[in-house]
């Protein structure tokens, strides 16, 4: 088995650039939510704007990767798997962008006692996304490490889901109106959805890795 799938291909670098964008997107998302929770509107809007632009750039980069994949005969066997991985990872970036946009559109009134928990939830979600990116990079260069990295994603996903669950329990046991509870649940749910998507990517990755070994 060829260990480094990308070595000496014209894709070397392109996929890394794309994955870098997901990492950067995660950081922008986290920073954006932090500024929202701290009421720093200008700074929040700047991060929102940069993240939206980054998502467009990532789409363009995705097209470059897709084009090169289809023109590279050496990658023929793995083309479908790689494409599936990259496109599903794009969904992770898309969800982060959408969630931050929802903060801007709906301006949820987060309870002061929960701002730290929402920030923590975002941190957990981003750690999961970072672990997902590390697992994808391993698929290309060190496939024997993929399994361990996927385990890490699963553990981080569980941590994030527990954090979201904790927030929702607090919310539904507080004295605020039911419609306000729905709104707060909605945001916890959307942040949580980011990690579910990251795990879905890893489910694909696990199968793609098994195929490389079989």
């Amino acid at each position, binding site marked *: 088995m060829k260990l480094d799938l990308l070595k000496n291909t014209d894709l070397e670098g392109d996929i890394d650039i794309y994955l870098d964008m997901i990492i950067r997107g995660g950081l922008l998302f986290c920073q954006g939510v932090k500024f929202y929770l701290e009421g720093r509107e200008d700074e929040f809007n700047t991060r929102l704007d940069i993240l939206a632009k980054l998502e467009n750039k990532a789409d363009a980069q995705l097209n470059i990767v897709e084009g090169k994949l289809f023109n590279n005969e050496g990658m023929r066997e793995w083309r479908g798997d790689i494409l599936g991985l990259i496109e599903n990872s794009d969904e992770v970036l898309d969800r982060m962008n959408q969630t931050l946009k929802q903060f801007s559109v709906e301006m949820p009134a987060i309870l002061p006692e929960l701002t730290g928990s929402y920030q923590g939830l975002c941190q957990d979600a981003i750690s999961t996304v970072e672990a997902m990116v590390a697992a994808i990079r391993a698929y290309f260069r060190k496939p024997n490490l993929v399994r361990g990295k996927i385990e890490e994603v699963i553990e981080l996903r569980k941590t994030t889901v527990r954090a979201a669950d904790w927030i929702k329990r607090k919310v539904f046991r507080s004295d605020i*109106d039911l*419609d306000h509870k729905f709104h707060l*649940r909605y945001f916890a749910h959307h942040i949580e959805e980011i990690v579910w998507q990251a795990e879905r990517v890893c489910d694909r990755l*696990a*199968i793609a890795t098994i195929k490389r070994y079989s």
Partner: protein
Amino acid sequence: MFLIFKKTKSLENQIEEFLATVEKGALSFQAGIKCYLSGGEEKLNVCLEEISALEGKADDLRREIETSLYTETLIPESRGDVLGLIESTDHVLNLMEETLQQFSVEIPEIAEELHGLYIELGNISAAAVTAMVKAIRSYFRDLQEVRDNINKVIFYEKEADRLADRIKRRAFRMELKLCNKIHMRYFAYHIEYISDMAENVCDRLAIATIKRYM
């Protein structure tokens, strides 16, 4: 004996164990809803713990099955179909667990006159899942039976649809705050959705079955 995997006893066992886990999950789900509505939040939590453990076990089994599917000798053309069936079935179990979890987190106030209908809806969705498991088993053991079992799932899905509609109509005609009505609708929708997903699994199954006849 699973006719599709003549040489792979361990894979047969894994799939059977996986399906049995989903079946048990349906029973815990059904019991959980009944417990919640009869005022037993503690009993609900017991059912929730049960179904969470089953869900974790099913996830592990799914991953083992995926590995076995690609590493053990099998009919290669059925591999993708089996994989798709296992993944979508796992999703149904996840939904049952998430729905019970939502009851535990959000403690919705269900109007007393609707308790019976919610319990019935839970029973019917669980019946759809049980029939779905039977249909999948017959795909492996006796293809002739697949059709009849799929028809049962379709029947339960339609029943769940009608019942959920009845619940929502009654809820929205009650003298309650709109947010309470929305909350009741949300839970009726999530219980009903389980039977929808069981039907989706059967749509896949129908195609996979036709492919085996060709």
